[in-house]
Protein backbone atom coordinates (compact mmCIF):
# COMPACT_ATOMS: atom_id res chain seq x y z
CA UNK A 1 0.00 0.00 0.00
CA UNK A 2 1.07 3.54 -0.71
CA UNK A 3 1.53 6.57 1.51
CA UNK A 4 -1.57 7.77 3.28
CA UNK A 5 -2.42 11.35 4.16
CA UNK A 6 -3.73 12.39 7.56
CA UNK A 7 -7.23 12.36 6.04
CA UNK A 8 -7.13 8.80 4.77
CA UNK A 9 -9.70 7.50 7.28
CA UNK A 10 -12.06 10.32 6.31
CA UNK A 11 -11.82 9.46 2.63
CA UNK A 12 -12.51 5.84 3.40
CA UNK A 13 -15.54 6.70 5.55
CA UNK A 14 -16.90 8.95 2.78
CA UNK A 15 -16.78 6.06 0.29
CA UNK A 16 -14.02 7.53 -1.85
CA UNK A 17 -12.70 5.59 -4.79
CA UNK A 18 -9.03 5.52 -3.85
CA UNK A 19 -6.32 5.30 -6.49
CA UNK A 20 -2.55 5.27 -6.52
CA UNK A 21 -1.17 8.70 -7.31
CA UNK A 22 2.64 8.76 -7.41
CA UNK A 23 2.79 6.32 -4.52
CA UNK A 24 0.01 7.96 -2.51
CA UNK A 25 -3.40 6.47 -1.96
CA UNK A 26 -5.64 9.37 -2.94
CA UNK A 27 -9.36 9.89 -3.61
CA UNK A 28 -10.29 9.94 -7.32
CA UNK A 29 -13.89 10.80 -6.49
CA UNK A 30 -16.51 10.24 -3.79
CA UNK A 31 -19.24 9.08 -6.20
CA UNK A 32 -19.36 11.47 -9.14
CA UNK A 33 -16.47 13.62 -10.24
CA UNK A 34 -18.80 15.67 -12.45
CA UNK A 35 -21.01 16.56 -9.48
CA UNK A 36 -17.91 17.46 -7.47
CA UNK A 37 -16.77 19.69 -10.32
CA UNK A 38 -20.10 21.54 -10.34
CA UNK A 39 -19.97 21.99 -6.55
CA UNK A 40 -16.67 23.86 -6.88
CA UNK A 41 -17.93 26.06 -9.73
CA UNK A 42 -21.22 26.81 -7.96
CA UNK A 43 -20.53 26.80 -4.20
CA UNK A 44 -17.60 25.15 -2.42
CA UNK A 45 -15.59 21.96 -2.58
CA UNK A 46 -12.51 20.72 -0.77
CA UNK A 47 -9.53 18.63 -1.82
CA UNK A 48 -6.99 16.78 0.25
CA UNK A 49 -3.73 17.83 -1.37
CA UNK A 50 -1.50 16.74 1.50
CA UNK A 51 0.51 14.64 -0.93
CA UNK A 52 2.08 17.80 -2.34
CA UNK A 53 5.62 18.55 -1.24
CA UNK A 54 6.28 21.59 0.94
CA UNK A 55 9.87 22.82 1.23
CA UNK A 56 10.88 25.83 3.33
CA UNK A 57 13.87 27.79 2.12
CA UNK A 58 15.70 29.85 4.75
CA UNK A 59 19.18 31.22 5.38
CA UNK A 60 21.08 34.40 4.59
CA UNK A 61 21.07 33.69 0.84
CA UNK A 62 17.54 32.37 0.48
CA UNK A 63 16.64 35.07 -1.98
CA UNK A 64 19.80 34.79 -4.12
CA UNK A 65 19.35 31.02 -4.18
CA UNK A 66 15.75 31.21 -5.43
CA UNK A 67 16.72 33.89 -7.96
CA UNK A 68 19.24 31.37 -9.30
CA UNK A 69 16.94 28.33 -9.07
CA UNK A 70 13.70 29.70 -10.53
CA UNK A 71 12.79 31.12 -13.93
CA UNK A 72 10.43 33.63 -12.35
CA UNK A 73 11.94 36.25 -10.06
CA UNK A 74 11.24 36.20 -6.31
CA UNK A 75 12.58 39.78 -6.18
CA UNK A 76 9.18 40.78 -7.56
CA UNK A 77 7.61 39.70 -4.26
CA UNK A 78 7.26 43.01 -2.42
CA UNK A 79 4.83 42.04 0.28
CA UNK A 80 4.85 39.45 3.07
CA UNK A 81 2.89 36.36 2.04
CA UNK A 82 2.79 37.14 -1.67
CA UNK A 83 2.88 34.06 -3.93
CA UNK A 84 4.66 33.54 -7.25
CA UNK A 85 4.14 30.81 -9.84
CA UNK A 86 7.38 29.67 -11.44
CA UNK A 87 9.05 27.00 -13.49
CA UNK A 88 12.21 25.34 -12.24
CA UNK A 89 14.34 24.69 -15.33
CA UNK A 90 17.29 22.50 -16.16
CA UNK A 91 20.33 23.87 -18.01
CA UNK A 92 18.71 23.00 -21.35
CA UNK A 93 15.67 25.10 -20.48
CA UNK A 94 13.36 22.10 -19.94
CA UNK A 95 10.87 22.17 -17.10
CA UNK A 96 11.93 20.12 -14.05
CA UNK A 97 8.75 21.17 -12.26
CA UNK A 98 6.30 24.01 -11.81
CA UNK A 99 5.72 25.36 -8.33
CA UNK A 100 4.37 28.09 -6.10
CA UNK A 101 6.71 30.06 -3.84
CA UNK A 102 5.48 32.25 -0.99
CA UNK A 103 7.53 35.00 0.64
CA UNK A 104 6.97 34.21 4.33
CA UNK A 105 8.50 37.35 5.86
CA UNK A 106 8.74 41.02 5.07
CA UNK A 107 11.01 41.40 2.03
CA UNK A 108 14.65 42.34 2.51
CA UNK A 109 14.70 41.62 6.22
CA UNK A 110 17.17 39.46 8.04
CA UNK A 111 15.64 36.06 8.61
CA UNK A 112 13.81 36.29 5.29
CA UNK A 113 12.44 32.89 4.25
CA UNK A 114 10.23 31.31 1.63
CA UNK A 115 7.86 28.38 1.35
CA UNK A 116 7.92 26.39 -1.89
CA UNK A 117 5.19 23.91 -2.89
CA UNK A 118 6.19 21.43 -5.60
CA UNK A 119 4.43 18.47 -7.20
CA UNK A 120 4.20 15.13 -5.46
CA UNK A 121 5.13 13.07 -8.52
CA UNK A 122 8.42 14.95 -8.91
CA UNK A 123 9.31 15.12 -5.22
CA UNK A 124 12.53 13.11 -5.25
CA UNK A 125 14.12 14.66 -8.31
CA UNK A 126 13.04 18.14 -7.18
CA UNK A 127 14.57 17.72 -3.73
CA UNK A 128 17.77 16.36 -5.25
CA UNK A 129 17.98 19.19 -7.77
CA UNK A 130 17.20 21.83 -5.18
CA UNK A 131 19.86 20.41 -2.85
CA UNK A 132 22.47 20.26 -5.64
CA UNK A 133 21.79 23.84 -6.64
CA UNK A 134 21.99 24.93 -2.98
CA UNK A 135 25.61 23.83 -2.53
CA UNK A 136 27.12 27.22 -3.24
CA UNK A 137 24.53 29.19 -1.28
CA UNK A 138 24.11 29.79 2.42
CA UNK A 139 20.62 28.29 2.62
CA UNK A 140 18.73 25.59 4.46
CA UNK A 141 16.05 23.47 2.76
CA UNK A 142 13.53 21.96 5.15
CA UNK A 143 10.82 19.64 3.93
CA UNK A 144 7.59 19.81 5.94
CA UNK A 145 6.13 16.31 5.57
CA UNK A 146 4.07 16.63 8.75
CA UNK A 147 1.92 19.37 7.28
CA UNK A 148 -1.43 18.44 5.75
CA UNK A 149 -2.83 20.63 2.99
CA UNK A 150 -6.49 21.18 2.21
CA UNK A 151 -7.67 23.25 -0.76
CA UNK A 152 -11.13 24.76 -0.32
CA UNK A 153 -12.31 26.18 -3.63
CA UNK A 154 -15.38 27.83 -5.07
CA UNK A 155 -17.36 31.08 -4.88
CA UNK A 156 -18.52 30.24 -1.33
CA UNK A 157 -15.25 28.67 -0.16
CA UNK A 158 -13.88 31.54 1.93
CA UNK A 159 -17.25 32.21 3.52
CA UNK A 160 -17.64 28.55 4.54
CA UNK A 161 -14.15 28.41 6.00
CA UNK A 162 -14.71 31.63 7.94
CA UNK A 163 -17.75 29.99 9.57
CA UNK A 164 -15.73 27.19 11.12
CA UNK A 165 -12.38 28.72 12.11
CA UNK A 166 -11.30 30.90 15.04
CA UNK A 167 -12.13 34.59 15.02
CA UNK A 168 -8.58 35.64 14.24
CA UNK A 169 -8.29 33.20 11.34
CA UNK A 170 -11.68 34.30 10.03
CA UNK A 171 -10.58 37.92 10.10
CA UNK A 172 -7.39 37.05 8.27
CA UNK A 173 -9.36 35.17 5.58
CA UNK A 174 -11.82 38.02 5.09
CA UNK A 175 -8.91 40.43 4.54
CA UNK A 176 -6.64 38.15 2.52
CA UNK A 177 -5.86 39.42 -0.99
CA UNK A 178 -5.72 37.03 -3.98
CA UNK A 179 -2.42 35.17 -4.34
CA UNK A 180 -1.31 35.98 -0.78
CA UNK A 181 -0.84 33.66 2.20
CA UNK A 182 -0.46 34.43 5.89
CA UNK A 183 0.29 32.45 9.02
CA UNK A 184 -2.30 32.28 11.75
CA UNK A 185 -2.00 30.26 14.96
CA UNK A 186 0.17 27.61 13.36
CA UNK A 187 -1.72 27.39 10.07
CA UNK A 188 -0.61 28.85 6.75
CA UNK A 189 -3.65 30.16 4.92
CA UNK A 190 -3.24 31.17 1.29
CA UNK A 191 -5.73 32.54 -1.20
CA UNK A 192 -4.48 30.34 -4.02
CA UNK A 193 -5.72 27.29 -5.88
CA UNK A 194 -5.81 25.17 -9.00
CA UNK A 195 -9.42 25.51 -10.11
CA UNK A 196 -9.94 29.00 -11.57
CA UNK A 197 -12.24 29.85 -8.67
CA UNK A 198 -11.73 31.93 -5.57
CA UNK A 199 -10.62 29.87 -2.60
CA UNK A 200 -7.96 28.91 -0.13
CA UNK A 201 -5.14 26.45 0.31
CA UNK A 202 -4.50 25.78 3.97
CA UNK A 203 -1.42 24.05 5.35
CA UNK A 204 -1.90 22.81 8.88
CA UNK A 205 -0.40 20.19 11.21
CA UNK A 206 -1.40 16.63 10.32
CA UNK A 207 -3.04 16.08 13.71
CA UNK A 208 -5.43 19.02 13.19
CA UNK A 209 -6.46 18.08 9.67
CA UNK A 210 -9.19 15.57 10.48
CA UNK A 211 -11.13 17.87 12.81
CA UNK A 212 -10.94 20.74 10.33
CA UNK A 213 -12.07 18.50 7.44
CA UNK A 214 -15.04 17.34 9.53
CA UNK A 215 -16.00 20.94 10.35
CA UNK A 216 -15.89 21.80 6.66
CA UNK A 217 -18.07 18.78 5.84
CA UNK A 218 -20.57 19.89 8.49
CA UNK A 219 -20.56 23.37 6.93
CA UNK A 220 -21.62 21.87 3.59
CA UNK A 221 -18.29 21.89 1.76
CA UNK A 222 -18.30 18.98 -0.72
CA UNK A 223 -15.34 16.58 -0.64
CA UNK A 224 -13.80 16.43 -4.12
CA UNK A 225 -11.24 14.07 -5.61
CA UNK A 226 -8.40 14.22 -8.08
CA UNK A 227 -10.82 13.63 -10.98
CA UNK A 228 -12.64 16.92 -10.42
CA UNK A 229 -9.34 18.63 -9.65
CA UNK A 230 -8.15 17.69 -13.13
CA UNK A 231 -11.25 18.89 -15.04
CA UNK A 232 -11.32 22.11 -13.01
CA UNK A 233 -7.68 22.95 -13.72
CA UNK A 234 -8.11 22.06 -17.39
CA UNK A 235 -11.10 24.42 -17.72
CA UNK A 236 -8.99 27.05 -15.97
CA UNK A 237 -6.25 26.51 -18.57
CA UNK A 238 -3.70 25.52 -15.95
CA UNK A 239 -0.89 23.15 -16.90
CA UNK A 240 -0.38 19.74 -15.34
CA UNK A 241 3.25 18.76 -14.92
CA UNK A 242 4.12 15.56 -16.77
CA UNK A 243 1.23 16.04 -19.21
CA UNK A 244 1.46 19.57 -20.56
CA UNK A 245 5.17 20.04 -19.95
CA UNK A 246 8.21 18.12 -18.79
CA UNK A 247 12.01 18.20 -18.93
CA UNK A 248 11.92 17.98 -22.72
CA UNK A 249 9.59 20.98 -23.03
CA UNK A 250 10.56 24.63 -23.00
CA UNK A 251 8.23 26.87 -20.98
CA UNK A 252 8.00 28.95 -24.18
CA UNK A 253 6.27 25.99 -25.84
CA UNK A 254 4.09 25.22 -22.83
CA UNK A 255 2.15 28.45 -22.45
CA UNK A 256 4.48 29.52 -19.64
CA UNK A 257 6.29 32.39 -21.34
CA UNK A 258 4.60 34.81 -18.94
CA UNK A 259 6.38 33.14 -16.00
CA UNK A 260 9.88 33.78 -17.40
CA UNK A 261 11.43 36.87 -15.84
CA UNK A 262 14.15 37.76 -18.37
CA UNK A 263 14.50 41.23 -16.84
CA UNK A 264 16.74 42.18 -15.17
CA UNK A 265 19.10 40.89 -17.85
CA UNK A 266 21.90 40.15 -15.38
CA UNK A 267 19.96 37.60 -13.33
CA UNK A 268 21.58 34.30 -14.33
CA UNK A 269 18.91 31.74 -13.44
CA UNK A 270 19.30 28.09 -14.43
CA UNK A 271 18.10 27.57 -18.00
CA UNK A 272 18.19 31.27 -18.84
CA UNK A 273 20.58 30.97 -21.77
CA UNK A 274 18.54 28.18 -23.33
CA UNK A 275 15.18 29.95 -23.10
CA UNK A 276 16.67 33.27 -24.22
CA UNK A 277 18.21 31.59 -27.27
CA UNK A 278 14.95 29.85 -28.14
CA UNK A 279 13.03 33.07 -27.68
CA UNK A 280 15.44 34.86 -30.04
CA UNK A 281 15.30 32.16 -32.71
CA UNK A 282 11.55 31.68 -32.38
CA UNK A 283 9.62 28.68 -31.11
CA UNK A 284 8.43 25.92 -33.42
CA UNK A 285 5.46 24.95 -31.30
CA UNK A 286 2.99 26.51 -28.92
CA UNK A 287 0.44 25.32 -26.38
CA UNK A 288 -3.13 26.17 -27.32
CA UNK A 289 -6.65 25.31 -26.27
CA UNK A 290 -8.89 23.08 -28.40
CA UNK A 291 -12.67 23.01 -28.33
CA UNK A 292 -14.89 20.27 -29.73
CA UNK A 293 -18.51 21.33 -29.58
CA UNK A 294 -19.78 18.11 -31.16
CA UNK A 295 -20.05 14.86 -29.25
CA UNK A 296 -16.87 13.03 -28.39
CA UNK A 297 -14.08 13.60 -25.91
CA UNK A 298 -10.60 14.87 -26.73
CA UNK A 299 -7.94 12.80 -24.97
CA UNK A 300 -4.24 13.17 -24.21
CA UNK A 301 -1.91 11.92 -26.98
CA UNK A 302 -4.45 12.21 -29.80
CA UNK A 303 -2.85 13.60 -32.94
CA UNK A 304 -3.66 17.14 -34.04
CA UNK A 305 -3.40 17.93 -37.75
CA UNK A 306 -2.99 21.52 -38.88
CA UNK A 307 -3.54 22.04 -42.57
CA UNK A 308 -0.32 23.05 -44.32
CA UNK A 309 1.71 23.29 -41.10
CA UNK A 310 2.07 19.77 -39.81
CA UNK A 311 1.09 17.89 -36.71
CA UNK A 312 0.75 18.38 -33.00
CA UNK A 313 -0.49 16.44 -30.00
CA UNK A 314 -3.08 16.83 -27.30
CA UNK A 315 -1.31 17.08 -23.93
CA UNK A 316 -4.46 17.09 -21.73
CA UNK A 317 -8.03 16.51 -22.81
CA UNK A 318 -11.33 15.84 -21.15
CA UNK A 319 -15.00 16.61 -21.06
CA UNK A 320 -15.71 20.03 -19.61
CA UNK A 321 -18.58 19.66 -17.13
CA UNK A 322 -19.14 23.44 -17.02
CA UNK A 323 -19.33 23.86 -20.80
CA UNK A 324 -20.96 20.53 -21.66
CA UNK A 325 -18.46 19.64 -24.38
CA UNK A 326 -14.87 18.57 -24.69
CA UNK A 327 -11.80 20.79 -24.32
CA UNK A 328 -8.07 20.14 -24.47
CA UNK A 329 -4.63 21.62 -24.26
CA UNK A 330 -2.45 20.75 -27.25
CA UNK A 331 1.05 21.46 -28.51
CA UNK A 332 0.77 22.50 -32.16
CA UNK A 333 2.91 24.18 -34.83
CA UNK A 334 3.57 27.82 -33.88
CA UNK A 335 1.74 29.20 -36.89
CA UNK A 336 -1.55 27.44 -36.11
CA UNK A 337 -4.59 29.67 -36.59
CA UNK A 338 -8.13 29.23 -35.35
CA UNK A 339 -8.86 25.72 -36.59
CA UNK A 340 -7.34 22.25 -36.67
CA UNK A 341 -8.37 18.60 -36.85
CA UNK A 342 -7.96 15.87 -34.27
CA UNK A 343 -7.67 12.17 -35.04
CA UNK A 344 -10.15 10.47 -32.77
CA UNK A 345 -10.93 6.81 -32.94
CA UNK A 346 -9.94 6.55 -36.60
CA UNK A 347 -11.68 9.74 -37.76
CA UNK A 348 -10.53 13.32 -38.28
CA UNK A 349 -12.73 15.73 -36.40
CA UNK A 350 -12.57 19.53 -36.83
CA UNK A 351 -11.85 21.52 -33.66
CA UNK A 352 -11.66 25.20 -32.79
CA UNK A 353 -8.27 26.53 -31.60
CA UNK A 354 -8.54 29.03 -28.74
CA UNK A 355 -6.40 30.75 -26.16
CA UNK A 356 -6.88 29.19 -22.71
CA UNK A 357 -8.40 29.55 -20.14
CA UNK A 358 -11.80 28.11 -21.04
CA UNK A 359 -13.61 28.93 -17.77
CA UNK A 360 -12.99 31.48 -15.02
CA UNK A 361 -15.22 32.06 -12.02
CA UNK A 362 -17.84 29.71 -13.38
CA UNK A 363 -18.15 31.43 -16.78
CA UNK A 364 -16.98 30.60 -20.28
CA UNK A 365 -14.13 32.98 -21.15
CA UNK A 366 -12.83 32.01 -24.60
CA UNK A 367 -14.35 33.10 -27.88
Amino acid sequence: MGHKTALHAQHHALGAKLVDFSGWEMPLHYGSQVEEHHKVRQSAGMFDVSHMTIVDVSGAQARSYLRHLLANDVASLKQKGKALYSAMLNEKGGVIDDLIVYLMTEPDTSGEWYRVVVNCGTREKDLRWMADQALRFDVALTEQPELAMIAIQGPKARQRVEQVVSESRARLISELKPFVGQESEGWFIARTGYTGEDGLEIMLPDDEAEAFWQQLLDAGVAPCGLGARDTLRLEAGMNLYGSDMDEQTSPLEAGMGWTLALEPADRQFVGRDAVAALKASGVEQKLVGLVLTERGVLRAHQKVVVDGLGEGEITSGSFSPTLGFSIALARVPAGTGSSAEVEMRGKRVPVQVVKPPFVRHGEKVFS
Partner: protein
Amino acid sequence: MSNVPNELKYVASHEWIRDEGNGVVTIGITDHAQDLLGDVVFVELPDLGAEVAAGDDAGVVESVKAASDVYAPLSGEVIAINEALEDAPESVNSDPYGDGWFFQLKLSDTSELDDLLDADGYAAHCEAEG
Protein backbone atom coordinates in the same frame (compact mmCIF):
# COMPACT_ATOMS: atom_id res chain seq x y z
CA MET B 1 -19.27 -4.71 -4.49
CA SER B 2 -21.19 -3.95 -7.65
CA ASN B 3 -24.78 -4.94 -8.28
CA VAL B 4 -25.32 -8.06 -10.45
CA PRO B 5 -29.08 -8.78 -10.68
CA ASN B 6 -29.94 -12.49 -10.79
CA GLU B 7 -32.69 -12.15 -13.41
CA LEU B 8 -30.29 -10.84 -16.09
CA LYS B 9 -27.76 -12.51 -18.37
CA TYR B 10 -24.28 -11.18 -19.10
CA VAL B 11 -21.29 -11.32 -21.41
CA ALA B 12 -17.62 -10.99 -20.49
CA SER B 13 -17.40 -7.59 -22.24
CA HIS B 14 -19.67 -6.22 -19.46
CA GLU B 15 -22.99 -5.90 -21.24
CA TRP B 16 -26.17 -7.17 -19.58
CA ILE B 17 -29.09 -8.78 -21.45
CA ARG B 18 -32.72 -8.90 -20.35
CA ASP B 19 -34.89 -11.46 -22.15
CA GLU B 20 -38.19 -9.67 -22.86
CA GLY B 21 -39.74 -12.76 -24.54
CA ASN B 22 -40.70 -13.27 -28.22
CA GLY B 23 -37.04 -13.13 -29.22
CA VAL B 24 -36.60 -9.53 -27.98
CA VAL B 25 -33.77 -8.53 -25.60
CA THR B 26 -32.81 -5.27 -23.90
CA ILE B 27 -29.11 -4.50 -23.56
CA GLY B 28 -27.06 -2.16 -21.44
CA ILE B 29 -23.73 -2.04 -19.59
CA THR B 30 -23.33 -3.43 -16.10
CA ASP B 31 -22.97 -1.63 -12.81
CA HIS B 32 -19.40 -2.90 -12.67
CA ALA B 33 -18.68 -1.41 -16.12
CA GLN B 34 -20.13 2.01 -15.26
CA ASP B 35 -18.16 2.01 -12.02
CA LEU B 36 -14.92 1.37 -13.91
CA LEU B 37 -15.71 4.08 -16.46
CA GLY B 38 -16.74 6.80 -14.02
CA ASP B 39 -19.07 9.62 -15.04
CA VAL B 40 -20.51 8.88 -18.48
CA VAL B 41 -20.75 12.00 -20.67
CA PHE B 42 -21.66 10.70 -24.15
CA VAL B 43 -23.28 7.55 -25.47
CA GLU B 44 -23.26 6.64 -29.16
CA LEU B 45 -25.94 4.10 -30.04
CA PRO B 46 -26.38 1.86 -33.09
CA ASP B 47 -28.77 2.93 -35.85
CA LEU B 48 -32.36 1.76 -35.64
CA GLY B 49 -32.87 -1.09 -38.04
CA ALA B 50 -29.19 -2.03 -38.13
CA GLU B 51 -28.34 -5.72 -38.31
CA VAL B 52 -25.63 -6.72 -35.85
CA ALA B 53 -23.81 -9.97 -35.19
CA ALA B 54 -22.72 -11.12 -31.75
CA GLY B 55 -19.41 -9.42 -30.94
CA ASP B 56 -19.88 -6.48 -33.38
CA ASP B 57 -19.28 -2.89 -32.27
CA ALA B 58 -22.67 -1.46 -31.47
CA GLY B 59 -21.83 1.90 -29.96
CA VAL B 60 -19.42 3.84 -27.82
CA VAL B 61 -19.68 5.00 -24.26
CA GLU B 62 -17.45 7.92 -23.31
CA SER B 63 -16.81 8.84 -19.72
CA VAL B 64 -14.72 11.64 -18.29
CA LYS B 65 -11.99 9.06 -18.00
CA ALA B 66 -12.10 6.94 -21.18
CA ALA B 67 -13.92 5.88 -24.33
CA SER B 68 -15.09 2.30 -24.49
CA ASP B 69 -16.76 0.27 -27.25
CA VAL B 70 -20.11 -1.31 -26.63
CA TYR B 71 -20.54 -4.73 -28.24
CA ALA B 72 -23.65 -6.48 -29.44
CA PRO B 73 -23.80 -9.55 -27.18
CA LEU B 74 -26.16 -11.34 -29.57
CA SER B 75 -27.11 -11.25 -33.27
CA GLY B 76 -30.21 -9.52 -34.55
CA GLU B 77 -31.87 -6.29 -35.65
CA VAL B 78 -31.82 -3.11 -33.59
CA ILE B 79 -35.51 -2.39 -32.93
CA ALA B 80 -35.22 0.31 -30.26
CA ILE B 81 -32.55 2.68 -28.95
CA ASN B 82 -32.62 4.69 -25.74
CA GLU B 83 -32.63 8.22 -27.15
CA ALA B 84 -32.96 9.65 -23.63
CA LEU B 85 -29.26 8.90 -23.13
CA GLU B 86 -28.41 11.77 -25.47
CA ASP B 87 -29.55 14.32 -22.89
CA ALA B 88 -29.07 12.19 -19.79
CA PRO B 89 -25.96 10.02 -20.23
CA GLU B 90 -25.57 10.05 -16.44
CA SER B 91 -28.46 7.52 -16.29
CA VAL B 92 -25.85 4.92 -17.24
CA ASN B 93 -24.17 5.63 -13.89
CA SER B 94 -27.24 6.15 -11.73
CA ASP B 95 -29.48 3.39 -13.11
CA PRO B 96 -27.46 1.03 -15.34
CA TYR B 97 -30.15 -1.69 -15.37
CA GLY B 98 -33.10 0.68 -15.76
CA ASP B 99 -33.09 4.15 -17.36
CA GLY B 100 -29.52 3.56 -18.51
CA TRP B 101 -30.42 0.80 -21.03
CA PHE B 102 -28.82 1.15 -24.49
CA PHE B 103 -30.80 -0.70 -27.16
CA GLN B 104 -33.13 -3.60 -27.95
CA LEU B 105 -32.54 -6.40 -30.42
CA LYS B 106 -34.93 -8.73 -32.23
CA LEU B 107 -32.79 -11.86 -32.18
CA SER B 108 -32.02 -13.75 -35.35
CA ASP B 109 -31.05 -16.88 -33.41
CA THR B 110 -32.51 -17.29 -29.93
CA SER B 111 -30.24 -20.26 -29.24
CA GLU B 112 -27.43 -17.73 -28.71
CA LEU B 113 -29.12 -16.93 -25.40
CA ASP B 114 -27.76 -20.24 -24.11
CA ASP B 115 -24.18 -18.98 -24.47
CA LEU B 116 -24.61 -16.09 -22.01
CA LEU B 117 -23.26 -15.93 -18.48
CA ASP B 118 -25.62 -15.98 -15.53
CA ALA B 119 -25.18 -13.64 -12.58
CA ASP B 120 -22.83 -15.97 -10.71
CA GLY B 121 -20.76 -16.59 -13.82
CA TYR B 122 -20.46 -12.87 -14.52
CA ALA B 123 -19.60 -12.04 -10.90
CA ALA B 124 -16.85 -14.68 -11.01
CA HIS B 125 -15.57 -13.19 -14.28
CA CYS B 126 -15.36 -9.69 -12.73
CA GLU B 127 -13.61 -11.13 -9.70
CA ALA B 128 -11.05 -12.84 -11.94
CA GLU B 129 -10.42 -9.62 -13.89
CA GLY B 130 -9.56 -7.95 -10.58
